[in-house]
């Protein structure tokens, strides 16, 4: 049986042109949500249909693609999307951040600093930062148009009134290029400072909501805050248990039902790179011990 043949990168050329136009407009107006005619993709909404369409539109045969899901290269979502483009576009794929030219991400920015030749594509579930404060889309668009962003601070005010500090930990609102308030997709606020003045182009695609927005390279991105409650990135106060990194974003992994837990880098490529370079954490020998046991048992 013949394998089905696809157009390069799955989408037809007209669709890619339409998406590229939206991307160009988004780059021209940093932070502005550009509507686009989102297509049905062979995956459910919520699995990155927006990001996949943006990636498909910008991918060229010479590109090297990396896909991460919560920082990890080896989760179902990341592997499926990587395989999808390996099959439909025949592009090279990688897990190494510095080898990639296009990085599609769900909720993290790689720890390794990005450069000018890279494009970061975010999968966005809810592009509208004002959504849960003002349910009317007509009204939020008007508020964006008139730069009426007092309401955004109402949310931060509520956080402080309720919890004593700004408790928003992800999807933390930012102001792009001193004009549009933008939802940076549900990245942890730890990553917000990396968006500011970033050399790489950052594109955001929301498939279900049919919106594309962008942060061009070297654009100012400021996290909203109060003078007396300034923005603070959050990180668990521990080194990575596998590579000992003190400054990377950590995932908490519960290891038993007695309250034990370990903290490991959420960015698997960064963590593996450090381990290969000889860095150790408190638990880094554990996997090798298990292997040794297997050998002795078998």
């Amino acid at each position: 049986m013949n394998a089905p043949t696809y157009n390069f990168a799955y989408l037809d050329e007209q669709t890619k042109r339409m998406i590229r136009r939206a991307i160009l407009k988004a780059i021209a107006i940093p932070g502005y949500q550009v509507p686009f005619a989102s297509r049905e993709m062979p995956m459910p909404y919520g699995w990155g249909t927006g990001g996949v369409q943006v990636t498909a539109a910008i991918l060229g045969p010479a590109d090297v693609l990396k896909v991460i899901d919560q920082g990890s290269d080896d989760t179902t979502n990341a592997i499926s999307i990587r395989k999808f483009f390996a099959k439909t576009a025949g592009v090279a794929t990688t897990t190494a951040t510095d080898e990639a030219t296009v990085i599609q991400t769900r909720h993290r920015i790689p720890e390794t600093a990005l450069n000018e030749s890279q494009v970061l594509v975010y999968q966005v579930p809810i592009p509208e930062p004002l959504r849960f404060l003002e349910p009317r889309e007509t009204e939020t668009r008007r508020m964006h148009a008139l730069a009426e962003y007092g309401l955004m601070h109402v949310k931060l005010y509520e956080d402080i009134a309720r919890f004593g500090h700004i408790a928003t930990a992800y999807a933390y609102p930012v102001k792009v290029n001193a004009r549009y308030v933008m939802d940076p997709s549900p990245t942890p606020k730890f990553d917000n400072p990396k968006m500011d003045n970033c050399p790489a182009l950052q594109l955001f695609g929301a498939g279900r909501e049919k919106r594309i927005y962008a942060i061009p390279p070297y654009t100012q991105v400021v996290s909203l805050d109060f003078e007396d409650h300034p923005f603070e990135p959050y990180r668990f106060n521990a080194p990575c248990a596998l590579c000992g990194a003190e400054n990377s974003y950590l995932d908490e992994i519960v290891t038993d039902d007695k309250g034990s837990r370990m903290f490991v880098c959420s960015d698997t490529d960064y963590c593996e790179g450090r381990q290969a370079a000889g860095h150790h954490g408190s638990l880094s020998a554990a996997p090798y011990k298990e292997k040794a046991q297997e050998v002795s048992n078998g």
Partner: protein
Amino acid sequence: MAEQNPVENDEPLLIANSLSKSFGRIHACRDVSFELYPGEVLAIVGESGSGKSTLLQMLSGQLAPSAGRVSYRMRDGVTRDLTTLGEAERRFLFRTDWGFVHQDPAQGLRMAVSAGANVGERLMAVGWNHYGRIRDTASDWLTRVEIDVARIDDAPRTYSGGMRQRLQIARNLVTEPRLVFMDEPTGGLDVSVQARLLDLLRSLVAELHLAVIIVTHDLAVARLLSHRVMVMKGGRVIETGLTDQVLDDPREPYTQLLVSSILPP
């Protein structure tokens, strides 16, 4: 402000010039003209369907008149036609120099966010960026409208009707507007709560030297709060004058009917 600039106060704050509004064949409002001066309270009374609310919406720039125009003297002293204002300017005016008290507080408040944030929203909208100061101002205003400061973090949906209405007033007055529109502010409240609210409104209006346009069908409210009364019927203003004069010595048969239909205390 009144003391600082007596000359400026000789000029009207708001001028309505032969305002008319028709919806198809229905003339909701016909040829209404008046001038409102700073610190003056004008009551618009009349039965349901007499065009009061349409008039209020036109005056506050929410509805474009079919004919005539509304001019407002901005804070910089220049009188401008409301229709020539851009949307951004009009919305800015609405959340700084104007207030709008709805009959139903749920329309004027954000029911799901705390009272403090409700009062602080206008301040944040004009660029206040200091949590402590916003909160202090909010508590100060809650005290002024007689709401227990301990309830600053409670959402208005946990408030009683009277408290909601007072919170709505605080939310509107926090930017020290010069003109407040009120649409039946005491409707739906029981009599003792109404009396307290009116008392509060009267003292705030005097203290802040507010100009108020209040729409009501309750003549007692008009008598207690307003300096001048406009009586509307069928979209027209049929009688206008000082409150005491109109209510004690009504000339038009309809006004006489309206006044005589109040039960004697």
